[in-house]
């Protein structure tokens, strides 16, 4: 009953979705072979939860079927990403990292009871590393240690973006910052979110930014660095299936094979 709508210009093609722009709309079309209807609706639902907390984020406009696929249309935010700014003006990287931390802490200051729990997500991802479908397999002992470590982490209800990095921050012409891509949003511990941002820098071979970011985050959030560090090994494990290169996988594996102090 739905005519195929005009999706506009194709911006990027990912393994499981295509992203288009049609004037003021950004349209994500999910490949039905990889992403089921329920997953798309769940993502949309979560995004609508996030909209409620009152942050500067693109509004979701519509969810609709597109042939056999499902699509989500949101506002298109015109502007430059923080990553682009940093690439253009590398000497000022500390200033941009400070901005990144400031925005992240604003997100983390929000509480939600509606989004999925971070720990559940991470536990599921660790368990998945024992399954055949997983790109990387970890042995049972390592998974046991990871589950155990995760179990001991404090459970919070802070809004976590899940993939908070400079490429997901857009600065508009009138100098307003928007935070994009809430597909991984959940509720949980701020240090876990910070360690995923940290790892994003590491995986992009930017140790300097990673270290500076971590210092800044801990200072501004008044969190001991050890707490963020304790998450790195767990979060590294959960990223094993989302990175693309063997080298990145090696980097993550190095973080995982550690023991707790006794």
């Amino acid at each position, binding site marked *: 009953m739905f005519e195929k709508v005009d999706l506009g210009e194709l911006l990027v093609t990912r393994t499981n979705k295509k992203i288009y722009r049609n004037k003021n709309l950004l349209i994500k079309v999910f490949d039905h072979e990889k992403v089921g209807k329920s997953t798309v609706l769940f993502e949309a639902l979560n995004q609508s939860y996030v909209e409620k907390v009152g942050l500067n984020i693109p509004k979701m406009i519509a969810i609709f079927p597109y042939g056999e696929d499902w699509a989500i249309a949101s506002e298109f935010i015109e502007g430059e990403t923080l990553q682009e700014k940093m690439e253009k003006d590398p000497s000022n990287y500390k200033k941009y990292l400070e901005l990144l931390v400031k925005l992240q802490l604003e997100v983390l200051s929000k509480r939600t009871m509606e989004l999925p729990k971070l720990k559940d997500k991470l536990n599921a991802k660790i368990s998945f590393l024992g399954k055949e479908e997983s790109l990387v397999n970890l042995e049972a*002992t390592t998974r046991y240690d990871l589950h*155990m470590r995760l*179990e001991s982490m404090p459970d919070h209800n802070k809004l976590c973006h899940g993939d908070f990095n400079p490429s997901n921050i857009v600065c508009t012409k009138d100098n307003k910052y928007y935070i994009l891509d809430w597909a991984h949003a959940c509720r949980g511990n701020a240090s876990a979110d910070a360690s995923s941002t940290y790892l994003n820098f590491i995986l992009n071979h930017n140790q300097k930014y990673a270290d500076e970011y971590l210092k800044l985050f801990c200072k501004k959030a008044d969190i*001991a*660095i050890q707490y963020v560090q304790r998450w790195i090994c767990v979060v590294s494990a959960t990223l094993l299936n989302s990175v693309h290169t063997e080298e990145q996988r090696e980097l993550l594996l190095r973080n995982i*094979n550690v*023991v707790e*102090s*006794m």
Partner: protein
Amino acid sequence: MIEQQKVSTPEELDELLKKVRQAQKIFATFSQEQVDKIFYHAALKANEMRIPLAQEAVKETGMGVIEDKVIKNHYAAEFVYNKYKDTPTVGVIEENKDLGYQRIAEPLGVVAAIIPTTNPTSTAIFKTLMCLKTRNGCIISPHPRAKNSTIHAAQIVLQAAIEAGAPENLIGWITDPSMVLSSTIMKEADCILATGGPGMVTAAYSSGKPAIGVGPGNTPAIFDKTCDIKLAVYSVIQSKTFDNGMICASEQSVIVDKEIYNEVKQEFLYRGCYFLKGEELDKVRKTVIINGSVNAKIVGQSAYTIAKLSGVEVPEETKILIGEVKDCSPFEEFAHEKLSPVLAMYKAEDFEDALNKADELVHHGGYGHTSAIYLNEVTEQEKLNKFALRMKTCRILVNSPAAQGGIGDIYNFMLAPSLTLGCGSWGGNSVSENVGVKQLLNVKTVAVRRENMLWFRVPEKLFFKPGCLKDALTELKEVYNKKRVFIVTDKFLYESGFTKKVTSVLDALNIEHTVYSDVAPDPTLACAKEGANLMLSFKPDSIIAIGGGSPMDAAKIMWVLYEHPEVNFKDMALDFMDIRKRIYRFPKMGSKANLVCIPTTAGTGSEVTPFAIITDETNGLKYPLADYELLPNMAIVDSDLMLNIPKGLTKASGIDAIVHSFEAIASIMASPFTDGMAYEALHLLFENLPIAYKEGAANPKARENMAHAATIAGLAFANAFLGIAHSLGHKLGAYHHIPHGIAVGMMLIPVMKFNASEQPTKMGTFSQYDHPICLSKYARVAEYLGCTGKDDQAKFNNLLKKIVQVQEAVEMPMTIQEYGVKEEDFLKTLDEMTVEAFNDQCTGCNPRYPLIEEMKQLYLEAYYGKNYKAKK
């Protein structure tokens, strides 16, 4: 070897748990002798198997040193056995018949024992032996990396236990450890003994079951400039190389005073340690610690292996890799716990700097665990004290290798031998000591009813008989050698020449004196301060109070202010439940002066009591003080001073003495010592009060008997205290301006009837007061006073009639109404007065603990008399 079915699912674990529970139930009935036999055999067998178990552990985990693991196994069996072999853990473990208590030990049930990879066999031996000694069942949750050796250790202990008579299945184990099974056993067991990283420990604490867990360590060792360098260096090597540094208490950093730094470095080098140079430092740094966690590949490896993994070449026999670093924060990898023979070395500017560094290291990584110091313990006690006060660690080791020192009983003999070291709340633990059998027992205390010690305290000297004043006062000179006397009295007595009778004796004795005669009835704090100020300038070595209650009370307060000008009356007057347990500690009296009391009325008894009441004139608050420090040192009861007491005063003070006696008899604090006094006082009072009232000075014998009776009653209530006739009387008198004796007198009969109930709403609380006995005690008084009757109730009724007769003889108003208090005024104040009376210090000793409403009824009864029908 004992085999156990596979446990890899929650259902299989449930099955196992059932079996272990059943076995434990049987084991819980075993005697100490049976338990000790099992403990002995299990320890013996574990000890025997220490070498194969050590070999298995190293082979399975790939960590540590076989020879050192042998020592750990040996220790877990032998030292632990030795420590607890004679410890009673079954049934009555402590008893004291005199104090009336027993302590009975019972098992907890089934203990979940979480075993780490670093000490898989020794910890298993330790925990299973602890469970055997305490009659607990045990389910072992091994780490997957060390499950075979852990389970083997448990099998050995179980087999030996069964051979010595233990029930089968007393110890069980998870064969395929997983997160699900670990959390299941932690939820199902009765107690969790968790050893391992913070993950395991936190999981244990959050399971909802009682958990004994331990936390991570990051032991710093300070090398003070006074230390024995050879001893210090080798102790660290001894500890750090032990099992390749896997003991959680072992040193992670040494902080060396700059004055000895080079010498210490040379000694480490001489003993085969390796100092990392230039890039080597960074290579090892990044290999050992990854994002703040220890690289699993280096745990329990030798210095050589770790160096090789880091791309650094060192001699194969290298003992420890040492990194000289400056930063103590978590940003420095060397500042972390390293679980390997890798050590950080810091240079300290001075001792204070060393303390700061050690504190920071503990703070960031080893809160609550262990710290160590090397110094000259003889000359540097002060430094040691500073260190001990500063470190937030539960073990503070002096001149000993930390690994072997922390586990106890090797380098010191007061730390319990244990492989589970509590880290207190700092480490998120419930225990701060080395865990032993104590934590695995439920100890029941049987507390048998015992009675408090009581006392009978009186002034050091009590002189009596008409005309005794002169002789008694002579003692001040002859016995006490007093030189300056301060006399406290009221205007009337001063003006009618009573003080002359004292001063003339003092003059004859050549004793300096001065008189303060401004005490008014209901003495005020201002008056007491005025008197005390005069005392401070006159500097008496003796205070004489002459008069009725007011001058004696005022003199007691002046005495306190003179001796202790700093006192706070509010604190002093704070109510207490038990005078022995009161919070306020009354200042010691008598360093400047003693107190002599000479009563001129027969009633208050203040000359022999430890009580005084003072009113703060600025806000009207009354401070009732009570403490035996206030007891006068000497009382002189000379009835010649009382011959001309006016009729009204004879009545009020005489009735007061009667109420004192009855209340002392009824009090929950009453004893045969006070009862005897009170009976005799009543006997004298009933016979003499009507006569003294009628005949006055014409009958000196009656005056004498009255004087003695009032003082004897004072002795009784000075030790047994009073009851609610006084509570009610105090407030009635204050609200409606009724003389004290009359006020309490009007409350007496309603209160006696109230107290005589055999079914009181609530009884007073005191161990020796075991059931309501007031009626029978009143009946005994009745008999003593010649009132007969067929039973206690009849005797009591006749006693009440006798009281009424005496009251009539002295023309006492029988009700408050009759006294002249207007009904309207009375009712207006009733509720407020009642609550205040309830809160009076005298309420606590009343044999019947009154409800506020009951006290209100008593007031109403006292107001309306016989016509009033009390509400049921």
